[in-house]
């Protein structure tokens, strides 16, 4: 699969990060990190726990500000943007949080409808229909819509969170650990879903994950974050041949080997 070629007509990068520096007090998280995500690709950010993957994601969606550096999304600088200026951008992306972050006092359908009605002028009936469609798209059973988040299992809650992230038909979708805490079957369903969404809707997807299976199956390009910088950046095949000890450890550790062999066997 060659993603880059099929995008020759729009070579622009959806996300472009230049010389990003992040510190929490004395602890340096990112040191001059640069990377870019191309339109229509499934991009994964991996790395050990606490290496600043989620922090980077939060900086891109403006929940947190870096110390210095530039982050451009859809060609627009987001560092230092006011909430008002950020609104048009925020309508063009969707974020699925690691633990769902569904509004606990609303049903799943209401969670999706709320986003739709905030940003469009749909009447209630059509908004409900579109919400039901998004819920169906994520593979939830139809009766899940009338349930409250606390009544759902972990996997269903993730799907519901994805349905909310897809509410506005975003061009860019952020997934924070989309398969963490899911059983292998549900996780495989998410792999499939991520690919289908990209193929059918042309969404650019940026995800943070630990899940090697998901990386092998879904990711077009992967960046490994560690030691405060990007250690490697490329397709899974390229990274699997990297000489860097941290990357080798990551991919050739006991679990990495299994996932890789599975991926080869499938091919």
């Amino acid at each position: 699969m060659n993603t880059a070629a099929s995008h020759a007509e729009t070579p622009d990068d959806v996300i472009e990060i230049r010389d990003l520096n992040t510190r929490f007090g004395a602890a340096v998280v990112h040191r001059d990190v640069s990377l870019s995500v191309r339109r229509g690709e499934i991009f994964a950010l991996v790395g050990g726990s606490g290496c600043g993957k989620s922090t980077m994601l939060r900086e891109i969606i403006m929940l947190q500000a870096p110390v210095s550096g530039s982050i451009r999304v859809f060609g627009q600088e987001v560092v230092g943007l006011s909430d008002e200026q950020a609104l048009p951008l925020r309508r063009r992306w969707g974020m699925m949080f690691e633990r769902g972050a569904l509004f606990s006092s609303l049903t799943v359908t209401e969670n999706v409808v709320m986003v739709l009605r905030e940003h469009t002028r749909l009447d209630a009936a059509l908004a409900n229909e579109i919400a039901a469609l998004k819920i169906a798209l994520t593979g939830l059973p139809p009766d899940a819509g009338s349930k409250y988040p606390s009544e759902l299992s972990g996997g269903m809650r993730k799907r519901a969170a994805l349905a909310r992230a897809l509410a506005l038909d975003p061009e860019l979708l952020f997934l924070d650990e989309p398969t963490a805490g899911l059983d292998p079957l549900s996780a495989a369903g998410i792999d499939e879903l991520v690919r289908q969404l990209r193929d059918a809707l042309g969404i650019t997807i940026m995800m943070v994950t630990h899940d090697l299976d998901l990386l092998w199956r879904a990711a077009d390009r992967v960046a490994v974050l560690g030691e405060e910088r990007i250690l490697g950046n490329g397709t899974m095949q390229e990274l699997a041949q990297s000489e860097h000890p941290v990357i080798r450890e990551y991919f050739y550790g006991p679990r990495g080997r299994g996932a890789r062999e599975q991926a080869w066997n499938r091919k």
Partner: protein
Amino acid sequence: MNVPTTPRHAITQAAADIRPGATPRDLRCEGAWLLRSAAQTEARIEACLRAFKQPVEGELLIDAQAVTALDTSGAWLLHRMRRALETGKCTVRFTGLRPEFEALLRLIATRTAQPAVAPLPAPGVLARFGSNAWEGLLSALGLLSFLGASATALMRALVQPRRIRWRSILYNLQTAGAAALPITGLLSFLLGIVIAYQGAEQLRRVGANIYIADLVGLSMVRELSPLITAIIVAGRSGSAYAAQIGTMKVTEEVDALRTIGIGPLDLLVLPKMIALVIALPLLTLYTDIMGVLGGMVMARAQLDVGFTTFIDRLDDAVSLTSFLIGIGKAPVFAVIIALVGCYQGFQVNGSAESVGHQTTRSVVQSIFLVILADALFSIAFSWLKL
């Protein structure tokens, strides 16, 4: 791989439209079928289908060559229109649809094959009344069984005193008792002033100035000071109990306690209840003093009744029985407040809103029950002629 590559926001083409085609067997779609104009698109479809005479059987063609953009909401409208047209023997086929749009439409058709569940109709007035009454009854029964469970836990703890969590009791004494001193003291002092001020006018008129000590002493010590203290503590600590336990339920900490083998009642309820049963009578004694002090200040200012005269009269006016009745109510109030606060905390069902809801209920219910208990005490004491 088919990826629609045009950034959707940049599309500035004509809005979505649909109209009858050249023959009675075809329709023509065009424009951008996107979420932002979905409401208008829906209206266009309805208008077009109303005017359209649908063939009974055979194939209906929808020419979608001029569709320039399609997102899930637009695809949903197309899909819904197809389903509406495919009645009887008529079949619908889209022609000229871009491959990526076709893929999207297929995805939606497969994912929505299951019929959507119709939402339950909203219950009527009678049904709501019934379910509220039933819930009220269940809540009362639940409170009763919670009282029973707490009493059992207390008995177990008394048999095995090692199970009592002294540190937690001391901590609760500090937060529910000592920390409440300033506010309860200030309020009862002000209450004493108010009562003395209201009484002063009447007493001066009949020249019974000295009876100000009876008025302030009896009303504060016997009724008002236990009540005001209990109400403040219900608002301060009862709500805190409900919110704390409720949040722990949301984060599954209560379940974790059970798993580790620690009874939630032992750890969360008993220390609070024991601490409050100790703290509330002490607080009441303190508010007795502060309330009478307020009355004394006012008596000297308004009625020229000096402190010594006041205290001499207080000795005769307030019997030991009255004093003990006032203090004796406090432990009962304490049990009510701790019980209701903790019970409502355990009733939280996992949402942030329910924490707020149950906290509110805990305050309202405990104040209600405290006043109810006070009324019952009054009736009982008048029977007993105390």
